[in-house]
Each structure stands twice: as structure tokens, then as C-alpha cells.
């Protein structure tokens, strides 16, 4: 349902025994026995197979590593930046580049040695060459040990990164260390972030999810940031900066007005000013935390003016206390509302909104006259409502539950209309061979008799009789014909399966009599029962028969393309089934194209001359019966 942004798909576990695994696999998966009296081609093939297998295995493993690791250019810029902060983009790219180089080198080694193996003329030589090839591949891999170690660490860390969706509704919490960001996220979501009194407890980004207005919201907790220039920031702070820079989220800048975090309000405001450029185009909310210790009103006037500056700049300021939980929900609601409004605004400004707005139509009933008719409640009713005493609310089970807390248990039998000692008795199901449920109602026998009487009446009147469909003559005829058709189809299918009609010699196409003729059409349809006497309304044309009155004029019959043919009784094969000239040209082109490659390579096809035996024995050996054998 939600797109999970995780990098867990890197599967290849890079081991230090990489080389051993591949070499032992080569030994197990290829044939192991070869003797020196085998044919040299067989020996060569044996060793070439080993070299190629080892190369293939290395290649497969290294290429899965290369494809599984995410490319920094293909992922969302937030993740690209985060990975740069955590793993150093250059080091990462270099390590993958080294692996790529190793891959190509191994391929080249294999190619060279397979080429050399073709000229190996003894088992010893082939074996030495195979040993040299495998040894070289192993040396190449040994040099990559450092890169592989680094990539393994990256893989492990990557699989545990929090899955933050950069495109959905997000609340981002930032501020100094120890101001109460993690406590806040613990309060509104189920994320269990560690809260401790020392600074930099949270060392990386954490994500939690909360609900508001039936929508899912992501809440991202960042490590605290200190106030110094960007170059001096360490890895932990840079993660927070990366999140601030790339996530389009509502920002909650948390401040500690009790100054228990170890930084004064002036310092916190100074930090706010220094990271202000990162808050551009994002809904911002300043949250004053730890109000259980000191409230906004109790602050010194200088500090109050600083906070007042925020309000003057149109940035909403809210108070809360994560310890006593007052104001936490209000802050969350306010932030969510602001973000929602902002997102809707952005969507309206985008181009896609036109498509949606065109489909929306709010229907308002047309006023039939200019008379306005607002809602009307008579005065007396209003007075009555105010005077009426408020109804005594019945005490609900929920209220009881809240009151009793742990001691509460749901007891549905307490309101039964029975004397107290019978209320909680268990009701048995059977008694003396009869169901108790049958005797609950005193009138049950009377009711049963009535029901039975009704049922008898119904059966008599024929409500349950099945209706016989009356078919008229036409329908009967149709049914009969349909049966006939089905029968004939079945017969044809069975005959073709048995092949009874096959085996008989077939006349070639050109020699066959005209198949599609009007007379044949007529006879077949009349057999089926269709009336064919109506010539006028017919869509088929009878061919003009040669009459004796007119002398036959010998004319060269040319077809649409202007080609003359002597006798065209049967359509030639390359024209049958083609409607017009364009289609014919296309068909010709397609046939040329498909044959082109075959012709170009000049490979022997079925129609080419093929000499089975190039050197028949009787021509190249033996004495001649008569004559000399100085020529063969």
C-alpha cells in the first residue's frame, strides 16, 4: 500500500571467503576426471570449461553486487544526499568502480587463457594454463578485499535505514539537542525513540506515523543541530540538514523555554535565524516546549520580545509540554492543518489541477424567484428549548468503565428482568428430551399450526409448480436445426481426428477445379434449407458463361498491376487472400525482408546443393580395373 523506501534488496553477502567459494564451486560443478591418454581436444575442452566456469561465477557474483547497490543518481535526492553524508559519495563510487574494473579484468583474463588453451598440446600444458588463469583471477579478487569490506558495511547500514517516503505528508522536527524532539515524536507516534538527558542521544533520523483526518502522516525526528557554520558540522548534524534540505515537509522548530537543554533562548533564536534559508516554501511552526517548568508569560521581557518577533513575522508560536502532555495534540493538529493547506495550495497552482477541476461540478438549485427563504424556527420553540431542563444523562457503560478502570468487567445479565437469585443462572439447552428453545414462546404450537395451514394453501394454489415453457412452431424449428448443426459439426471433428478423409492423393492447387463457384454456393445453401431462388437480392454475381452466339475474342488478360497472364483459372499463390495492390506490395516487402539475412549470409538452406560425402572411398582409393591411377 505504501511505497516502502528501503534498500534491503542488496542480497549478495560479501564474504572474505569469496575466492574460496568460487574455486570450490568450480571444482564441484565441473567434471573432475581427465587422463592424459584422452584425445587432446577432449583435454582442452575439459580445462577450458573450468576456466570459463570460474569466470562466469565471478562475473555473476560481482555483477549482482553492482546492480543491487543503489546508484546515487537514480534515487531520490534526499536519499542520495543522506548516503553521501553517511558513506561519502566518492568512496562509494570508487569502491563500486573498483569492483567494475575487477569484473572486466577477470573477463579479459579468461578470454586470453581460453585462447591460449586452444594451442595446448599436452595435458600438463593445459593444466598449467588453467592453473595460471584461475590464479590470476584470484589475485585480482584479493586486491579488492578493501572495497568489498567497505561495501559490506555499507550494505548492513543501508538495510537498517528508516524508510522515509519523500513525497508524502511529512512533519519534520528540528531544534537544539535535548529540547524534547524525541519525546514529542514518542507522544504522537508509536516510534520508540530513545530519550536521555545527554545531548546527541538521537544520532540519526527516525520516522514514525500518525493519523489525522483519516490520513497517514509521517513524522521525522532529527538529531539536534548546534549553531556553527556548515563546514564545521559533523555527520550526525549533516543528516538533519539533509532532511531539512530535501524533504518537502512542515517544519516544527522546537525550543526549550526553560533552558534546561543547556542553551539560552537567545542562542536558540540565533540558530533559527541561521537555518532560516532551509525553511523556504515550507509551512513553519515554532513550538515552545517544557512549559510545565516555566510558561511563556513568566519569561523575562527581553526573551518575550524575541518570541514576539516570530509572531510578528507571521510564524505561529505554540506552547506544549511533552511531560504533562498538554498542548501536544494541539501542536500536531495545527501542524497537520497547515501542511494540508499548503499542499492543496501547491496542487491548485500546478497544471494537473485543471483536469480535476473540470470534472468537479457543484450543483446549486436554480432559484425560481428572487424570494429568499432562510431557515425558520418559531420563537416559542426556542424559548421552550432553553427552558427545558437538561435531561439527566443515563450513566453509560463507558462512564462506568472509566470510573472503575481496572476493576470493570462487562456484565450483560445485570439488567435482566428476573429475581436476583435467578439472574445469573445458566440456561440449559435440553430438558427431558425436548429443546427448551421450542417452549420459550407459550403460543408456539398455535403459531406452528397456522404456518402449516398457510403452506398447504400455497401448495394447492400451485405457487411452487414449475412452469412449462410453451414453444411455438418457430422456436421448435430453430431447436431442431440447431441440433442438426451440432451433430454435423461433431461428425466433422471426429472424422478429421480419425483421418478417414485423409490419405487420398490430393490434386495440386492449379489443377483443381474452381472451388468457389456460384453453383457450389447454391447447392450447399439449399442443402441447409436456405431459399436461394431470389436472384435480384443476391450479393453474389454469376460469372458470365460463354455463349455460342458471340465469337470469342482473344484478348490478353491483364490484372490490376498490368501484368499479362495466359490463363488465370486459379489465383496465383502470392495473390490469394490479398485485397488490394498496397497489401500485395507490403506482403512482397515483408517476404523480401525476412529472406534477406539468409541470403546475405549465404548459409546453405534446404534448397541448396549439399554434398553428403566429400571423399567417397571408391573414388579415392583402390586400384582401377583398367587404366592408370595417376589422377584421382
Amino acid at each position: 500500500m505504501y511505497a516502502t523506501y528501503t534498500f534491503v534488496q542488496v542480497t549478495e553477502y560479501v564474504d572474505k571467503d569469496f575466492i574460496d567459494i568460487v574455486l570450490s564451486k568450480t571444482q564441484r560443478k565441473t567434471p573432475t576426471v581427465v587422463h592424459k591418454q584422452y584425445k587432446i581436444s577432449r583435454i582442452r575442452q575439459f580445462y577450458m570449461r573450468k576456466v570459463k566456469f570460474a569466470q562466469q561465477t565471478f562475473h555473476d557474483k560481482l555483477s549482482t553486487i553492482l546492480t543491487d547497490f543503489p546508484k546515487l543518481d537514480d534515487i531520490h535526492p534526499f536519499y542520495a544526499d543522506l548516503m553521501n553524508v553517511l558513506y561519502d559519495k566518492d568512496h562509494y563510487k570508487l569502491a563500486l568502480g573498483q569492483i567494475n574494473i575487477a569484473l572486466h579484468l577477470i573477463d579479459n583474463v579468461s578470454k586470453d587463457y581460453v585462447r591460449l588453451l586452444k594451442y595446448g598440446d599436452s595435458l600438463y600444458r593445459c593444466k598449467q594454463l588453467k592453473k595460471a588463469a584461475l590464479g590470476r583471477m584470484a589475485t585480482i579478487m584479493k586486491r579488492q578485499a578493501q572495497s568489498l569490506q567497505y561495501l559490506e558495511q555499507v550494505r548492513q547500514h543501508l538495510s537498517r535505514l528508516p524508510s522515509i517516503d519523500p513525497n508524502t505528508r511529512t512533519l519534520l522536527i528540528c531544534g537544539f539537542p535535548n529540547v524534547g524532539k524525541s519525546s514529542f515524536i514518542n507522544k504522537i507516534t508509536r516510534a520508540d525513540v530513545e530519550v536521555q538527558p545527554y545531548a546527541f542521544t538521537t544520532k540519526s533520523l527516525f520516522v514514525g506515523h500518525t493519523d489525522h483526518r483519516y490520513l497517514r502522516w509521517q513524522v521525522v525526528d532529527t538529531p539536534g543541530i548546534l549553531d556553527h557554520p556548515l563546514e564545521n558540522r559533523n555527520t550526525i548534524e549533516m543528516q538533519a540538514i539533509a532532511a531539512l534540505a530535501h524533504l518537502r515537509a512542515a517544519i516544527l522548530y522546537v525550543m526549550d523555554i526553560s533552558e534546561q537543554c543547556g542553551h539560552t533562548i537567545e542562542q536558540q533564536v540565533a540558530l533559527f535565524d541561521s537555518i532560516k534559508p532551509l525553511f523556504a516554501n515550507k509551512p513553519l511552526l515554532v513550538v515552545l516546549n517544557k512549559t510545565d517548568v516555566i510558561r511563556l508569560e513568566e519569561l523575562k521581557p527581553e526573551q518575550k520580545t524575541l518570541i514576539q518577533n516570530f509572531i510578528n513575522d507571521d510564524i505561529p508560536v505554540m506552547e506544549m509540554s511533552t511531560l504533562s502532555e498538554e498542548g501536544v495534540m494541539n501542536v500536531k493538529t495545527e501542524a497537520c492543518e497547515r501542511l494540508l493547506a499548503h499542499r492543496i495550495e501547491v496542487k491548485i497552482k500546478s497544471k494537473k489541477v485543471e483536469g480535476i477541476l473540470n470534472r468537479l461540478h457543484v450543483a446549486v438549485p436554480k432559484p425560481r424567484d428572487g424570494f429568499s427563504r432562510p431557515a425558520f424556527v418559531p420563537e416559542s420553540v426556542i424559548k421552550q428549548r432553553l427552558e427545558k431542563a437538561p435531561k439527566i444523562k443515563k450513566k453509560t457503560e463507558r462512564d462506568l468503565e472509566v470510573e472503575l478502570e481496572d476493576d470493570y468487567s462487562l456484565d450483560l445479565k445485570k439488567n435482566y428482568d428476573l429475581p436476583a437469585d435467578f439472574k445469573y443462572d445458566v440456561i440449559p439447552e435440553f430438558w427431558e428430551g425436548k429443546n427448551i428453545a421450542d417452549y420459550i414462546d407459550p403460543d408456539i404450537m398455535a403459531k406452528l399450526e397456522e404456518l402449516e395451514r398457510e403452506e398447504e394453501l400455497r401448495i394447492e394454489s400451485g405457487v411452487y409448480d414449475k412452469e412449462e415453457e410453451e414453444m411455438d412452431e418457430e422456436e421448435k424449428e430453430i431447436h431442431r436445426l440447431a441440433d442438426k448443426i451440432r451433430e454435423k459439426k461433431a461428425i466433422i471433428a471426429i472424422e478429421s481426428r480419425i483421418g478417414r478423409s485423409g490419405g487420398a492423393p490430393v490434386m495440386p492447387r492449379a489443377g483443381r477445379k474452381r472451388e468457389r463457384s456460384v453453383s457450389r454456393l447454391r447447392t450447399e445453401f439449399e442443402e441447409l434449407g436456405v431459399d436461394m431462388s431470389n436472384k435480384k437480392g443476391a450479393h453474389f454475381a454469376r460469372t458470365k458463361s460463354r455463349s455460342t452466339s458471340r465469337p470469342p475474342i482473344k484478348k490478353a488478360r491483364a490484372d490490376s498491376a498490368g501484368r499479362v497472364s495466359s490463363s488465370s483459372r486459379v489465383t496465383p499463390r502470392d495473390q490469394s487472400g490479398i485485397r488490394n495492390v498496397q497489401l500485395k506490395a507490403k506482403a512482397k516487402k515483408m517476404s523480401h525482408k525476412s529472406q534477406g539475412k539468409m541470403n546475405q549470409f549465404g548459409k546453405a538452406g534446404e534448397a541448396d546443393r549439399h554434398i553428403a560425402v566429400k571423399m567417397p572411398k571408391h573414388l579415392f582409393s583402390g586400384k582401377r580395373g583398367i587404366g592408370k591411377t595417376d589422377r584421382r
Partner: protein
Amino acid sequence: MPQNEHIELFQKRYGFRMDYQERQRKKKAREHKLQSKMAQKLIGIKGKIFAKRRYSEKVQLKRTIKAHEEKKTRKKDEGKVPEGAMPAYLLDRENTSQAKLLSSMVKQKRKEKAGKWDVPLPKVRAQSEAEVFRVLKTGKSGRKGWKRLVTKVCFVGEGFTRKPPKYERFVRPMALRFKKAHVTHPELKATFCLPIVGVKKNPSSPMYTSLGVITKGTIIEVNVSELGLVTQGGKVVWGKYAQVTNNPENDGCINAILLV
């Protein structure tokens, strides 16, 4: 979902099992049994690999034990005499005499005349023609056998073009043509991959030299401009001789030692 260091966080919050430490200790104590079982059971290539690894581990163990033991014992300090040190009463003497100088000069001259060079591999096994060449059958029914296929690694120059196939007697396949050699400098103990300029002499036969066949013991000339050597007079050395030290047709590469 588990985020970041959730395992460590869990351990911090809820601690370990009651018997966790004991189980770890016992598992470690049983490790030697596992090792001995594997050492007995593993056979074949896996056994060899395991044995090799185990051997190197044992060597390390023994070394550390010895190092520990050395600290405890004390050794007598034997006064070591540095090499090339002379006793005081011999200090002022000239060690070489005139006669010796003369005789060494004469020997040098004689060597130069004979053309005997001091090479790392003075003697190599001679390769017969049957080893180096293989008969290629040609003709209508494969009855002519005057062509020969070279089965050893060879070097052909840069502008090499074959003779017309009908007339070429010695076929040197492209797979066996090499252009580079791995040359080791004997003093620096460093190896470089240098391009071959030509084959100077093949000890088995002058025919092989003219064909460019490279076998063990062949003297080849390599392009050493990469090393940046300079003569006394200030000229840059770009070609030097090297002697091949391996069987290139078995290893797929040419390894040579530079003759300085």
C-alpha cells in the same frame, strides 16, 4: 519498523538473558572440540584449505607464546662482530695486490673475446624441433606435410605481415604472439610490464631466434624507457636485455630478469 540500531537499543533497555554470559563462556570453551572435529572430518580440498589455515594459526600462536616466554628468560649477550670489520693490526694494509688486479683484468678480456656473458640461467634444456613445431597437414587429402605450426610463444615485430598463406612454411598463431613481458629488476626487486623490442638469442637454435620463438632462457630486448635510466654521459637508456625465466607456453605470460 526497526530503525537504525534497534538491536543495541533493545539490549540497552531490556538487557540480556539471565544465563547469557554463562552460555557465551561455555560456547567458547567448547570451540576446541568443534575445531578438532572439523580437522578430523574434512576431507578433500576443503580439508587441505582448513589444514593450511589451521597451520598458519598455530604458527602465530606459537610465536606469541615464544615471545611471552622470551620476556621471562634472560640471554647472555654475545658480542657480535659487524661484517667487514678488521682487527686493528691489519688496518693499514692494502688488501689486493697488483698481481691479482692483473689476473682479473686478463680474465675479463678473455671472457669478452669468447662472448660468454654472465646470465642468471647459464644452462637451459635444449628444445628439439619436435617440441617446438607441429606438423600441419595441407593439400588435397591432407597428404602434404611441409608446413609447421609453432607451439611455443613467439614475438613478431610491429610491422609484421604474414607471407601469403600458400607459401608460408612456419605458422605463428596469433594467440601465441606476445608483446609484453614481466621484467624483474634483480636489485630493486620490482617487476614491471615492459614491451618487447625483439628476440636477441634463443639458446636452442639460431632458427628459433630468427623466427622469434621465446622459450626458457631466451635473451630478449625490452623497452626500459619507463624506468627512466640514464647513462653516465647523460643519455637516456631505452633498451636493455633480459632473460626469460619461466616456460611462457605453460603460464600464459613471459617472466624475465633484467640483465644489468
